[in-house]
């Protein structure tokens, strides 16, 4: 047994309203640069839909992930080492820019510089690749909320697996949102595809990263990743991918997508797993066994033997403690409501999803039934084949049994809690029907519905010894006194030369204060503040201007 720790995420799809705040903040944080205009480390797809890049889930076409050989071993679906090297001069399975979308901007300048005339000037779309006029025909989220209807949604590779029934029952259309980031897999096929060995899995927390200094732009990782979450920066010629916001995680903050999630649907925490068991679990014969196989590699941090083995493997005690409090462990192992995305790719993804019950409830309500009644819900979960099979196509390699179990547990929780909410008696039979107790129902409800910041995000900071190093600039430089040479962090070639202080150190204390303070950000500054909303524009309320330096009165 080789215990390793993995930072993992679970998203509760019932809560996703498709607002794309996560995508936008992620874009602002990581990919608002030239060369990655088309790149969304975090994107929110409408399901059914083609996804981003288009039809990425069709592995017959894109050849991502692993495939089990007849000998029972795993090799990248796009080919082993030799084949990779021979196709290195032109990767045969690389998505083109058009499969993502051609990035564009608008000619805003024209609005200001156009000569006076009869027509209102317009800002034409310009391609960011060529600078020429372009037609906007697709984007990262063109089919948002089923835009384009059946014409586009029919191209959904997952939908096509259940297509014959769907065609007849499309009127009962259903929609949910699927936010996606890099899966930070236990068995990452992008890393396996990288000829340079530039993509690595971090031993401490399992985050999969691209070493920008070692990447040589062979672009095999883009093919290797079945989720198409490794991107090619077309300006620098390097691969880039979701970093799990490691600078934030290292100091105990949630990823930016989690931090800004409006629906609070993301959970972050540690999972301990047995690294020696990963290969065997990833190569089980039947695709449908992969979900169970992946659960079997997770180690119970409450087990003293596991804790001891983790300690021996060098995992610090505060990390083991964090693994015990991990919401991920509870959602995946204790309540069994979270499922992996496409386990059949055999990469052992570590961003899991709680499948949405809402489509089922919606259909029930629309057909005049009580959408919150346990027995109606149980019956509907069984009767509504399409959502079930579709969800199974996403989360369990087509096996509807685990999906049924999850939806039933969610349905049971829903109606169990409704009785409490309406002041009715607790109905333990509802809990028992899904193999849980009333107490577990309450705990699960708390975790899914009201969990606060520190319950949703249980992130042990990078280790204590390292924490000092992380704050190197703040705590170590003895020249940082007023007027000293260390002041302003001037480098050898003038101000701001040399390497910069890590930004997370600068913002760490500020952010923590803001998030945990009860009062104002800067207590004691009340006399200096003025509410401009109440100001009528006349006179100078006290505090409108900062006090004069010479100390004379404002009046």
């Amino acid at each position, binding site marked *: 047994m080789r215990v*390793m720790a993995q930072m993992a995420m679970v998203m509760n799809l019932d809560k996703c309203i498709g607002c794309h705040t996560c995508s936008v903040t992620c874009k602002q944080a990581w990919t608002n640069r030239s060369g990655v205009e088309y790149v969304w480390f975090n994107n929110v797809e409408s399901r059914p839909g083609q996804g981003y890049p288009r039809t990425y889930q069709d592995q017959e076409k894109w050849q991502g992930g692993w495939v089990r050989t007849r000998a029972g071993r795993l090799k990248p679906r796009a080919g082993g*080492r*030799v084949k*990779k*090297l021979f196709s290195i*001069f*032109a*990767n045969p399975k*690389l998505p*083109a*820019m058009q499969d993502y979308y051609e990035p564009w901007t608008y000619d805003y300048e024209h609005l200001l510089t156009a000569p006076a005339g009869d027509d209102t000037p317009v800002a034409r779309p310009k*391609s960011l*690749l*060529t600078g*020429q006029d372009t037609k906007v025909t697709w984007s990262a989220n063109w089919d948002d909320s089923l835009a384009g209807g059946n014409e586009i949604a029919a191209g959904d590779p997952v939908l096509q697996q259940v297509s014959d029934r769907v065609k007849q029952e499309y009127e009962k259309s259903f929609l949910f949102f699927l936010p996606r980031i890099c899966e930070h897999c236990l*068995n*990452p096929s992008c*890393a*396996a595809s*990288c*000829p*340079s*060995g530039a993509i*690595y*899995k*971090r*031993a*401490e927390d399992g985050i999969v990263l691209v*070493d*920008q*200094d*070692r*990447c*040589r*732009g*062979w*672009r095999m990782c883009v093919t290797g990743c079945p989720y198409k979450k490794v991107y*090619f920066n*077309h*300006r*620098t*010629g390097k691969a880039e991918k979701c970093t799990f916001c490691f*600078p934030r995680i*290292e100091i105990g903050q949630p990823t930016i997508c989690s931090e800004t999630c409006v629906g609070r649907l993301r959970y972050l925490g540690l999972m301990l797993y047995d690294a020696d068991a990963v290969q065997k679990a990833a190569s089980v014969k039947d695709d449908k066994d992969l979900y169970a196989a992946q659960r079997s590699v997770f180690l119970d941090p409450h087990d003293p033997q596991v804790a001891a083995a983790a300690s021996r*493997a*060098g*995992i*610090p005690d505060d990390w083991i403690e964090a693994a015990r409090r991990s919401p991920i462990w509870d959602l995946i192992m204790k309540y069994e409501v979270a499922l992996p995305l496409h386990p059949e790719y055999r990469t052992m993804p570590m961003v899991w999803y709680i499948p949405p019950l809402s489509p089922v409830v919606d259909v029930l309500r629309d057909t005049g039934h009580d959408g919150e009644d346990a027995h109606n819900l149980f019956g509907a979960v069984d009767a509504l084949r399409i959502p079930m099979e579709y969800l199974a196509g996403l989360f369990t390699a087509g096996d509807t049994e685990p999906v049924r179990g999850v939806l039933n547990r969610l349905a049971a929780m829903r109606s169990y809690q409704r009785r409490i909410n309406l002041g009715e008696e607790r109905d333990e039979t509802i809990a028992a029907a899904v193999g849980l107790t009333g107490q577990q129902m309450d705990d699960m409800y708390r975790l899914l519905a009201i969990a606060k910041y520190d319950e949703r995000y249980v992130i042990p900071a*990078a*280790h204590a*010894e*390292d924490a*000092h*190093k*992380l704050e*190197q600039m703040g705590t*170590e430089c003895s020249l940082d006194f007023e007027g000293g040479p260390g002041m302003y962090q001037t480098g050898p070639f003038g101000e701001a030369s040399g*390497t910069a202080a*890590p930004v997370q*150190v600068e913002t760490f204390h500020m952010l923590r204060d803001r998030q945990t303070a009860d009062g104002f950000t800067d207590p004691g500054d009340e006399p200096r503040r003025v509410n401009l909303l109440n100001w009528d524009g006349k006179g100078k309320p006290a505090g409108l201007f900062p006090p004069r330096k010479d100390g004379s009165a404002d009046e």
Partner: protein
Amino acid sequence: MNVLLWVVYPYLAIAVLVGGLIWRYRYDKFGWTTRSSQLYESAVLRWGSPLFHFGVLMVLVGHIGGLLIPKSWTEAVGVTEHMYHLTAVFVGTVAGLCTLIGMAILIARRRLTGPVFAATTKNDKAMYVVLAAVIVCGLWATLKANVAGDGYDYRETVSPWFRSLFYLQPDPDLMAGVPTTFQTHVIVAFALFAFWPFTRLVHAFSAPVGYLTRPYVVYRSRDTRPGLRPSRPGWEGPPTAPKTRATRR
């Protein structure tokens, strides 16, 4: 003049190549990439790029065989000059033409595909000129010697001279009587070597042969890079408590 062309110049070019590569590796690891344009355009690249690259690899093998392996060695294993010459001219011409055609396709693609042309730097253009010159001169020398004349045995002159550079006993006289076509090819080739480290061609030196023996999944520890900052030489930080975290693979 002979000494300048066949001693000073090659050594300078090699020095720039080696020094340039070291410099580039130390100061511009980030820029060390193929800068592939496949994302912009794939259909033409699929033909041009393998044609060029496999062609140029064959050319490389041919040059190693022709320049580094002495004539006496091949004759010792029973390969006559005639046999060698026939193979070399035939395989060499095929490989050279593959390279040339591949390169023509790639240059045409680069010029005619909007996004690819937009991503082409001045450095790229200069590199293409030099690279094309080397290939064309090489092919021209071969063709002219074999079509117009009845072949030229460069293994008596160019090859010993080339090897003499590496023994550090350069013999410029060997090159004096060589046909101008071959001389031009050699001179332009050394210009390319000198230019090499400063172009995108550096990616040839990171050919990923290690991939064949590496385990598929790479684990790396964060410990060597505390935070985001590389440690500075000579500054390992203040004393710290002994590490409790064992290094794991």
